[in-house]
């Protein structure tokens, strides 16, 4: 299905998705998604468990390549380049499109090394200290850790770990950050910090966030895509995109009844 967005003059898309289906073996996790995502905006994917939103976001930086049997059909264009073109190197894709995961996953190394690892991998080894400070400052973590840069990152709290993961992601200067339920393992205070941080980061990055917290989606995002699961002929469930619009419209005046039921808490 094609969902058209009729807003403003923003014609600058970060992703244009055309008829994308993702499957694992003979199981289709999500199918026929077409949507355009705007640069320097926060786009949220919401929907009940199993609707394929995490699967979809993982195909945006080719992390699905790492899962045996995963296959992506259709076109995901990133700034005009089809990410699944034969010529495209997934390693290069991931250098441009960073990812923050559900559970904070800092490396069991020092705070500094967590940042410098990605920098070294990407040959950004000039002014390492400045880059470390810049990334940690951008991630609103610098003041808390500036005296403990050599401390093991695993000694940080969960919220700090997640901000460190954001810091190491933005340190390598990507254009886009994918966030897969980045706050689901965090308490409300840490969640608030990450949400505030997203509002600052969106000035420099395009952000895609998967969340099953509708309040979070309504708080942080500019655009919102609602997915749901539908039973297929063989009795299994496949995710589908139901509605995609700017967040305000979706939460005040959704065009699909399914969306309204979900955001008003009647199912999911």
């Amino acid at each position, binding site marked *: 299905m094609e969902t058209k967005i009729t807003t403003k003059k923003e014609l600058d898309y970060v992703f244009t998705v055309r008829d994308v289906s993702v499957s694992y073996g003979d199981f289709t996790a999500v199918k026929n998604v077409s949507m355009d995502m705007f640069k320097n905006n926060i786009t949220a994917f919401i929907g009940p468990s199993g609707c394929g939103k995490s699967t979809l976001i993982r195909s945006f930086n080719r992390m699905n390549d790492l899962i045996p049997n995963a296959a992506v059909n259709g076109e995901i264009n990133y700034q005009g380049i089809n990410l699944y073109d034969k010529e495209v190197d997934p390693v290069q894709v*991931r250098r441009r499109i*960073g*990812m923050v995961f559900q559970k904070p996953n800092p490396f*069991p190394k020092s705070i500094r090394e967590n940042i410098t*690892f990605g920098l070294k991998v990407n040959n950004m080894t000039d002014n390492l200290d400045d880059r470390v400070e810049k990334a940690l400052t951008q991630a609103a973590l610098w003041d808390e850790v500036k005296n403990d840069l050599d401390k*093991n990152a695993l000694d940080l709290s969960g919220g700090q770990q997640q901000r460190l*993961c954001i810091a190491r*992601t933005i340190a*390598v200067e990507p254009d886009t950050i994918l966030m897969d339920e980045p706050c689901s393992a965090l308490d409300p205070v840490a969640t608030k910090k990450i949400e505030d941080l997203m509002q600052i980061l969106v000035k420099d990055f395009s952000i895609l966030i998967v969340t099953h917290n509708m309040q979070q989606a309504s708080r942080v995002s500019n655009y919102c895509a609602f997915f749901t699961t539908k039973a297929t002929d063989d009795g299994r469930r496949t995710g589908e995109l139901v509605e995609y619009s700017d967040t305000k419209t979706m939460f005040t005046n959704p065009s699909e009844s399914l969306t309204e039921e979900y955001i008003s808490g009647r199912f999911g």
Partner: protein
Amino acid sequence: MTKNLNLSKVKTKPVETIVKFFITMSAFAAILISVAIVFTLLTEAINFFRDPAVTFKEYFTATRWTPTFKNPVYGVLPLVSSTLYIALIACIISFPLGLFSAIYLSEFASRRTRKIIKPIMEILAGVPTVVFGYFALNWITPNIVQRFIPGSGVFNAISAGIAVGIMIIPTVASISDDALNAVPKSLRMGSLALGSTRRITALKIMLPAALSGIIASFILGFSRAIGETMIVTIAGGQYPELNLDPRKAMYTITSSIVNVSLGDTPHGTTAYNALFALGITLFIMTFILNIFSDYIARKYRKEYEQ
């Protein structure tokens, strides 16, 4: 209100008591057996050192081990050095090969390849050591050692060391593989998401994170090499003097125990008691290594349990 709510203790069935008794006894049996072994080793070893024909100084400094000769000399030095020497050769062979195969299996191999290679490796682990021994003597020695290293004897430390090394590859590989698999997958994902390659992820993230288990596998492999008996007895020779030339025969602790046990050494003689002194020496060596490996594994594993 609640009817028939009964929270009082239920009478234990006799079957349960019996089962519990047997389970407890089996647990204690293991401890009991260990204590009995150490006790026997110790008492006989003490008898050995009490013997007027032996001195501590001789045991630790003499460079010959000839308990069955007319003028016996009981110097453990050549045995310890041979044992360590052959174990070292085995480590040089098995550590890199074992570790590389573990890295390959856990980080690069597809599921299908893994399914094929793992059982083959386990077969290697199941080959009786006596087979490795004859393989070393009849194949490795003439075809590799004597061909490429001039001056090698029929019995030599290199050949025995290589065979012991091949024998412990599965140990090193399988424990290292477990260690790599125990590293949370999220670390690998995190590294790849930063745009690093599989190779960098394996070497810079996964390997350091699994280091405790890998070191533990090395120590355990080393400890197995020290205790290995059949291969070194068959292929390593019985040269009872201090010798640091790997092309020549050596005499490990284990093969000298075999040798003395095979001969008709009468019970209670000095040579007989010497066996137990050797036994306890070997036991202490492997015991220290095992404790050390346990300590390392524990010390570094703590980092994750948060």
